[in-house]
């Protein structure tokens, strides 16, 4: 053997990202850089995407630590609108709590809650107009709540009872309401993102004034449909708002697995020439302000906007998930952007239009409202007891007109 230089190529190794902490460790969000509220400028809606590239790496925030609304994105909502926003978030939270309980009681098979993410869908809905269309995922029920969709209808769907508007065909929470601008939820991931772009293109083709909103989670941005959606939105300047809800966790997979080497999810939009912004998803005012900005761009035919909502999934992914298996139990308490309900409450108290007493009273009123809706829904049955959709409903609606082979099968089933 000689001691000559080692000419063999260096050995490769595979990089697999890991979250900062696992169960048993101390929660650590030091990697989440949080600018001060009010510090991010509010550009004109016709700004060149080139000039606001930094907005894809910052976080637009309105509510500061003291509960004040500050900076250029503040001041869009009246007291009454903010109070309504708080009530909607409280309602969604109470609704979730009751439905989680109902799932544990065996009244339904499955549920997905919004805990910690209520501001995103509740505030966003208020930036849209009647006739606009959302293409949501399973964690945007605030779009329905904030638009006044009856809770009892949602529960009928969750319980798959005889009054279920979807006739028992869909997994719980996969709502559909054309009237309330809420496209039928699929249950698989990311397909709706490009459909939203198509809907927006159709509105533009017809010289309509309505716009669309696409929704996706951080994990599903890895799907090819996300990228198809961005290229179509970019190419045709579709009047669509492309929402990414980054709640840090895709079931057990931390957001770094889908994000890869990019700094942020919002940065995905930059390569497509789409104005891309990051916003504090737990700040009702910031979510609304940024959504309003994007909606105005879309309505003025300026094209798509990508928005990343930085938030945190406080609860489990679904009732089939146990987060303590993959993240520290106390992680949600360490989440630096706080709780959306408490932050808006604090702001409203500071404005002098709310108080601890009124808050407690409102919670009680809302709980009554939810319980009343639940009583009514349960009178139509729950998954395993009471009124059920007909077996006939299995066969109806596969096509507009039932073809002979489906009719034969229905008859065979005895209906």
């Amino acid at each position, binding site marked *: 053997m000689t001691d000559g230089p080692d000419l063999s190529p260096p050995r490769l190794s595979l990089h697999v990202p890991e979250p900062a902490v696992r169960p048993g460790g101390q929660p650590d969000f030091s990697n989440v850089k949080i600018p001060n509220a009010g510090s991010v400028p509010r550009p004109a809606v016709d700004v060149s995407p080139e000039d606001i590239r930094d907005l894809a790496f910052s976080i637009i925030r309105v509510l500061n630590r003291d509960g004040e609304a500050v900076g250029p994105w503040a001041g869009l909502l009246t007291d009454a609108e903010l109070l309504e926003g708080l009530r909607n978030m409280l309602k969604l939270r109470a609704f979730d709590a009751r439905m989680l309980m109902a799932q544990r009681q065996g009244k339904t098979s499955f549920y997905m809650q919004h805990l910690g993410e209520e501001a995103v869908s509740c505030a966003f809905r208020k930036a849209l107009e009647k006739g606009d269309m959302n293409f949501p995922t399973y964690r945007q029920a605030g779009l329905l709540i904030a638009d006044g969709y009856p809770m009892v209808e949602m529960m009928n769907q969750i319980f798959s009872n005889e009054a279920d508007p*979807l006739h028992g065909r869909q997994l719980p929470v996969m709502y559909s309401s*054309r009237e309330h601008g809420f496209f*039928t939820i699929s249950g698989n991931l990311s397909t709706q993102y*490009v*459909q939203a772009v198509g*809907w927006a293109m159709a509105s533009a083709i017809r010289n309509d004034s309505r716009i669309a909103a696409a929704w996706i989670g951080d994990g599903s941005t890895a799907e090819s449909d996300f990228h198809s*959606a961005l290229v179509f939105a970019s190419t045709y300047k579709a009047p669509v708002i492309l929402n990414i809800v980054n709640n840090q966790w895709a079931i057990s997979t931390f957001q770094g697995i889908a994000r890869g080497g990019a700094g942020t999810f919002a940065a995905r939009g930059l390569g497509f020439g789409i104005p891309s912004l990051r916003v504090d998803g737990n700040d009702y005012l910031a979510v609304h302000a940024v959504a309003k900005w994007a909606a105005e761009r879309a309505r003025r035919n300026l094209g798509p906007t990508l928005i990343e909502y930085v938030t945190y999934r406080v609860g489990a992914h679904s009732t089939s998930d146990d987060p303590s298996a993959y993240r520290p139990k106390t992680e949600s308490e360490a989440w630096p952007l706080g709780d959306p309900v408490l932050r808006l409450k604090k702001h409203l108290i500071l404005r002098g239009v709310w108080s601890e007493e009124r808050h407690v009273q409102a919670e009680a009123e809302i709980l009554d409202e939810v319980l009343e809706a639940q009583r009514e829904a349960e009178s139509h049955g729950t998954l395993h007891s009471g009124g059920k959709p007909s077996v006939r409903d299995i066969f109806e609606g596969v*096509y507009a007109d039932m*073809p*002979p082979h489906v009719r034969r099968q229905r008859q065979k089933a005895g209906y």
Partner: protein
Amino acid sequence: MARMTMIEAVRSAMDVSMERDETVVVFGEDVGYFGGVFRCTQGLQAKYGKTRCFDTPISESGIVGAAIGMAAYGLKPCVEIQFADYMYPAYDQITQEAARIRYRSAGDFTCPMVIRMPTGGGIFGGQTHSQSPEALFTHVCGLKVVVPSNPYDAKGLLISAIEDPDPVIFLEPKRLYNGPFDGHHERPVTPWSKHELGDVPDGHFTIPIGKAEIRRPGEAVTVIAYGTMVHVALAAVEETGIDAEVIDLRSLLPLDLDTIAQSVRKTGRCVVVHEATLTSGYGAEVAALIQEHCFYSLESPVLRVTGWDTPYPHAQEWDYFPGPARVGRALQDVMEG
């Protein structure tokens, strides 16, 4: 009436539909300015403008996904997938989305759209330009699947598909675009102008989806085919001199079981022919239905003549393609059986 190739017939169907209904839009790869790689959309952009007929990025899931959104809005998209072999990236959008939107939303949203795709081999397209993936669609509830075998049907069926309230997969046998190819690749192709089914009305007419057509009445055996194989079957019948009844299915989903059952009960024998691979192919469904509905009339086992269970080869195309000789052998076998 006008003499049309199948390309012209398909184009005419879209033209007539776009003229009658301004919610009909046409798009796909190379579909706009250029008019499609097979020229099926030639002239449509010039006539209807580029917001009703346009080019798209090379993204099949994008094309179909966007079309679903448009259909939900209220448009009637008629999109082109350049080759059926390219549809796989859109398969999720087709099977889990387009096919189920009516059902899962209980009619709150619907998905009236057409996905056109050239299908089948015979043009030396190799394994990614020759496939016949119809069985991947007929397995999906909520879709309709149509395969025309001539210009007249192509136009009438495509107009029906565009007017249908549900999603329709419209498979165009590309080897038939310019003439009724019967599998005799060594001979020059007769143009559609010399075929009676190349006579196509200029204006609006429809052919109902779900109705088969008997191309040749006969007593001895039933041959069930669609697309290119209709012409191959007719050639095989002529060459063997067997008095076969040749049924052109035209619609695979829904299927015209009545026409099939009536014929097989009469002949007692059946050969199912398709270009797609054998195993779990559409012929398996047809054969199963025949034994279920015509068992006591059968004189011999139902036979299938299909492409081999291999990828579609390039150089050996004519050893793969189930031509008239293979169909003829099956006809003789089924008569002896």
